[in-house]
Every structure is written in structure tokens, then in C-alpha cells.
């Protein structure tokens, strides 16, 4: 297939980078645990976008990246489920989803 994309590669990479950065920011700066999971989801998305961009522009004929993309999404979903399950458990103990309250490792 010789499809043409008028958007060059760096724009895709830039977008993926921005998304990744926002995801990092969300993970680091959000209080709520659900929002952190969403940040992680964003970071996954950015990575998939970065991989797909590179597939399309470097080796369009190889469809292993597509497999990779599906894998990643699957993994992210599983990971999301697990995370939510943990969070649900934590919420049952703490009655809150505030991350600042999960400090029981050592309080000084």
C-alpha cells in the first residue's frame, strides 16, 4: 500500500511526547489514585502512538507493530483492572482515594 500521509513523522512523535509528558505529569501531580491510573493509561497511549508512527513511516509492510499495539492495549487493560482492584481494596480500608493518605510504610 502506498498510502500517503501529509502529516510528517515528527509531528506524530511530538504529539506522542506531549501525551507522554502529560501522562507523567498526571501520575506525579494527581492526588486521586484513579487519576494516576488514567495518567498511566495516557502514557500507554503515547507509547502506542509513538510505535505506530514509527511503523507507518519506517516499515509499513511489517505488521508486528500492530501486534505490539494490541498487546500493549491488552496489557494496559489488565494492568488497569488490577490497579482498580487494588484501589478498591485500599478504598475499603481507607475510605478515601487520596494518594497522600497511603503512607503507611513509615511515618516519621
Amino acid at each position, binding site marked *: 500500500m502506498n498510502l500517503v500521509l501529509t502529516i510528517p513523522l515528527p509531528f506524530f512523535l511530538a504529539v506522542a511526547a506531549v501525551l507522554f509528558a502529560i501522562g507523567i505529569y498526571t501520575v*506525579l501531580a494527581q492526588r486521586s489514585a484513579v487519576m494516576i491510573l488514567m495518567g498511566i493509561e495516557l502514557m500507554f497511549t503515547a507509547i502506542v502512538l509513538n510505535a505506530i508512527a514509527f511503523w507507518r513511516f519506517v516499515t509499513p509492510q511489517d505488521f508486528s507493530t500492530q501486534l505490539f499495539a494490541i498487546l500493549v492495549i491488552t496489557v494496559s487493560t489488565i494492568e488497569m483492572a488490577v490497579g482498580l482492584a487494588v484501589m478498591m481494596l485500599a478504598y475499603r480500608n481507607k475510605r478515601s482515594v487520596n494518594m497522600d493518605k497511603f503512607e503507611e510504610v513509615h511515618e516519621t
Partner: protein
Amino acid sequence: MILLFFIPALPLLASVLILTMLRKDGQKSAVAGVIATAFTLALLPFLFGKNVSSSVPWLQLNHYQLTIGLSLDMLSFIFISVISIVSLFVQIYAIGYMKEETGKIRFFSIFSFFIGSMMLLVLANSFLLLFVAWEAVSVASFLLISFYLTREESKRAALTAFIMIRVADVALFVAWLLVLLQTGTTNIPTFLNAVATGQFASGMLIVITVFFVIGALGKSAQLPFSSWLPGAMVAPTPVSALLHSATMVVAGVYLLLRLFPLFTAVPVASQIILWIGLVTALVGAIIATGQMHMKRVLAWSTISQIGEMILAIGSGSIIAAMFHFITQAFFKSTLFLTAGSIDKAAGTLELEKLKGFGRALPILAIPFLLSTLALAGIPPFSGFFSEEAILASVAKNTPALILFLITLFLAGLYIGRVATAVFLSKPTHKFNNASLPFFMTYPTLILSFGAADIGLVLKPILLLLLPSQNETLSLLLRLISVGTSISGLAIGFIYVKFFGLKNPLGRVQQIVERVVLGVPNITVQAVQSIGTLLVNLEQLFDDLVRLLVSQTFVLVEKLQPVEVAFDDGALKFATNTFTLSQITDKAENIWFSNPVDTLGNTIMLAGIRLKPLQQGKTYNYLSAILLWTVLILGASAFLLIIISVIR
């Protein structure tokens, strides 16, 4: 009894009167004194033969009673008779003698005071009163000896006399205090009764007797208290005539006569006073032979005669002693009054200058020669009878008898020497024919008649009164005694005629005189040197202690730099140690404690900083992971670039 009171009271009253009311006029004062004595004499016949006494308790302390009282018995009567007769004549004589002197009022006042005190002494029947009168008589003697206030030797002689008698008076005082302690009263008759009935322990009795004897010896100028009497001759002649020949010096004899029962109870005391009296008589006579001054001859003669009286008491014969007292009073005072007249007329009493003076005043020859013969003991003059009585009492004691005869010989010698020199020699220089005041000559003459024949008169009277006391004397002994007296006079006469006024006994007399006069001096010097020794000893100790203290101070001063050096050394050592420790401290701080502290702090800070890692803050964990990842990726990117560049 009232009459008895007047006897001492009249002269004492006169004395006070002279001092207070008759201050202006000397003559009136003298007359007052004479009148007082005359009245006293006039009272005597009324008192003759009466034995009166009265005693008044004066002070009662627990069981001790001090009494005062007067009593009259034969002994007192004889004494006051003699005292008043001799005093009267001497006072009349003194009116003439003191005519040109200043201080007449003082003289006559003290003179009357003396007469009153002497009367009081012989009339007292209480030891207290006797002692007071005894001291009063000493005071009067002192004041009269020092009458010539401007002469240095008067003051010295008066002081010597007073002090020497005072020393003996201590013994007298102790004696009557002992009596007071034993009998509880000062009454003399009580004491004598107690002695006679044997109430005293014999040891105590001996002590009391010895002390009374010492007191009597001092007053009567016996050995060893003799040296004051010759010195007392610087007094005016009436004083010498009355006090120091007839009355005051015989107070000791009176005391011994009054206390005669003591001597019968204590025979050893009789022996003591016998020998003291005899030795004094002998020594006094020896010294008298070599004197060059008429009054000194008479002074030593008085000492010798009183020694004879005491010898008589010691031999047990009161009558002999009293008799000799009476005769001696008369002839000795006559001799003194004559000497005074010669003094007034010639201005001197040195025998050398008086040779042959009798030619100028022949009237004085009568009393002088009569008294000379009386003193020497030539019959029928009075001295013979009294010395015979003494001889009788001492006849049984052969050594004493021999010495007494020697004394008689010497008595003749010394008085014969003086009589010859003055009255029986040819004059060596020219004397003016002098004349004497009226008052002076006649009393002298009258007294001399007394001297001459009182003995004759009294002997039968005494025999009548006291037959038991008459001791018969063998004719041989009488002849020997008369022969001794005559030979004494003769030798004196011959000696002066041929050898002049040289000392008849030569070296012997000089040595004896020096010893007798020197013994008190040596005693005083010994006591003084002991005192000086003690003072020096104390000074030595004082110096020693001072030396010790000063040396200690010096030592301390020397040690002080050493101690300061030690102090400095220790200070330096301490300072250096301190500095060293400070340096060590700083070094330790800089090199050790500070780095260690810094290390510790750093680690702590690191720990603090690293703490958040373990706190469970998820944010921190996530940041760390992110950072680490970025670093790894950056590093790997860098490495890849470098590798590609190298390829």
C-alpha cells in the same frame, strides 16, 4: 586614876598647843613645853606607891580582844620619875641652846610629843598601846635627828636610825601578835599571868621571847643594831641628851624589865640576853676608846651602859638593871649637856681642837668631872653603887665576870681620856673666855649633882624597899672593881698626857669599829645584790626570749623568697600545663572533634534528606523512578551518539 591619865596627856597636849596656837613665838612655845613637864613632875608625889591600873577594851573581833589601858606599878613609877626629871632639866637647857636656831616651834612641839609618847610607853598595859607609843617615839626621834634640815648627814642619819629600828620592830610586832593569837587579848598582865602559870607551849614561848628580845635590841642600839646611834649624834644636843642617852634607847630595857616573867620561864633567853648585853658592853667600850668626837664617845658609851643593863636582866637582877638605868640617865645626860655647852662655846666637838678648853670655861668642869667619876664607878659617886649591883648579879658567872671587869676598865679609860684631854690638859691654842647663857649652865649643874649623889641616896632606899634583892658581894670583889675603875681612869689620864689623843687600843679598836658599823652595810648590800641579781636574771630571760623571737622573724624573712620562688614555680608550672591543655583542646577540636562532628552532621543531614525516600510518599518514589529513567536514557543516548561518531 585621872592623875595617871594626865601624865602622858599633858606633854602631848603641850605639843599640839605649840603647833597650833603658839606659831608665832618660839620662846612661848618653849615655856609651854617646860610647864607641861613641870606639871607632870608635880603630879608624881601624888602617885607614889599607888598601884593603879585600868584597861578598856577597844576592839573585839570574834574571840580576840584589843585593849587599851594604863597602869602604874613600881617599875613604871621609877621610869616616869626619871623621865620627867631629866626631861625638865633638858627642856630648860634647850631654851638656852636653841636660842639662835630657826624652827624652835617645830623643835619644842616634837620634844613635848616625844616626852608624852615616852610616858605613854612606860605606862601602857596593853601591847597595842605600847607598840603605838614605841613607834611614836621612833617618829619623834626621826623628826628630831633630822632637825637641821639643810644638812645632808642629818637626813641620812635620821633615815638610818628609823629604818634600822623599824627592822627590829617587825620582830616586836610579830611577838605581840603571837601573844594576841595565844591569849586572845593584848593585855600585858594577862599575858604575864599566863606565862607564870605555864599556859604556853615552851616552843612558842621561846619564839615569842626571842622576838621581843630582837625588838628591844633594835631600839636600844645593841649589837647587831648598833650603828644608828653614833650617826644620830648629828641631832641638836638636847635631843642627844634626852633621847639617845636617857630615855628612848632605854625603852628596850624597859620592855625587857616589864617582860621579866618570860625570862624566868625561858632560861635560855636569859642566857642569850646576858651574853648579848655583855658583848655589846665590851665592844661598845672598845670602840668608845678610839673616838675623836666627843659626842661619839658618849654614844658608844651609852651603848655600852645599856649593854650592862641588859647583862643585869640576863643575870636575873631587875633591881641592878633599874638602878643602873637611873644612874646612867643622870650622868649620861649631864655629860651630853656639858658637851652641848662646849659645842656652843667652842663651835666644835673634835677632841683634837678642844684640848685644854676647860681653862676657858672652868664652870663646866664641875658637872663633867662629877659625871666622869660616876661613869667610871668611883665611890662614893652614884655609878659605883649601880655597877656594884650589876657586879653582884654577875658574880657567879666567872667568864662573864671577867669580861665585865674588862668593860669597867675600858669605861674608865675612854671617859678619862676625854676628861683629861678637855679639862686637864694645857691648851694648844688660845681660847677666848666664853660665856654661856643662863639657862644652859644651871640645869647642867643641877643634873650633875643628881649624877653625883643619887646613888648614895638611892641605895639605902632600895635596900629598904626590896630586902630580898640584896646580894652581898665579897670584899675582894669590891676592891677589884674599884681598882679596875681607878686604873682605867689613870691609864686614860696618863695616855693623854704622854701620847696625846692617839687611839689607845690602836688597830684592835679600828677593826672592831669597822666590823660593827659595817655589818648592817654588808647585809643591806647583800640584799641589794640579790635583788640586782634577780633583776639581771629576769633581764637575761627577757633578752633570751626577745632573741628567740627576733631570730624566728629573721628565719621567716629568709624563708620568704624561697617560698615565693616555690610559689612562682608552681604558678608557672600550672600556667604552662593550662596552656598545654588549652592547645591540646584546640587541636583536638580542630583535628578531631570538628571533623567528626561535621561527619556526623553530614550523615545526619544526609539521613534527613534521604528520609522521605522511606516515608511512603508515592510522589517521591515516582519522581525518583522518573528521574532515574531519564538519566539512563540520556546517558545511553549520549553513549550511542558517541559510538556512532567514533564509528
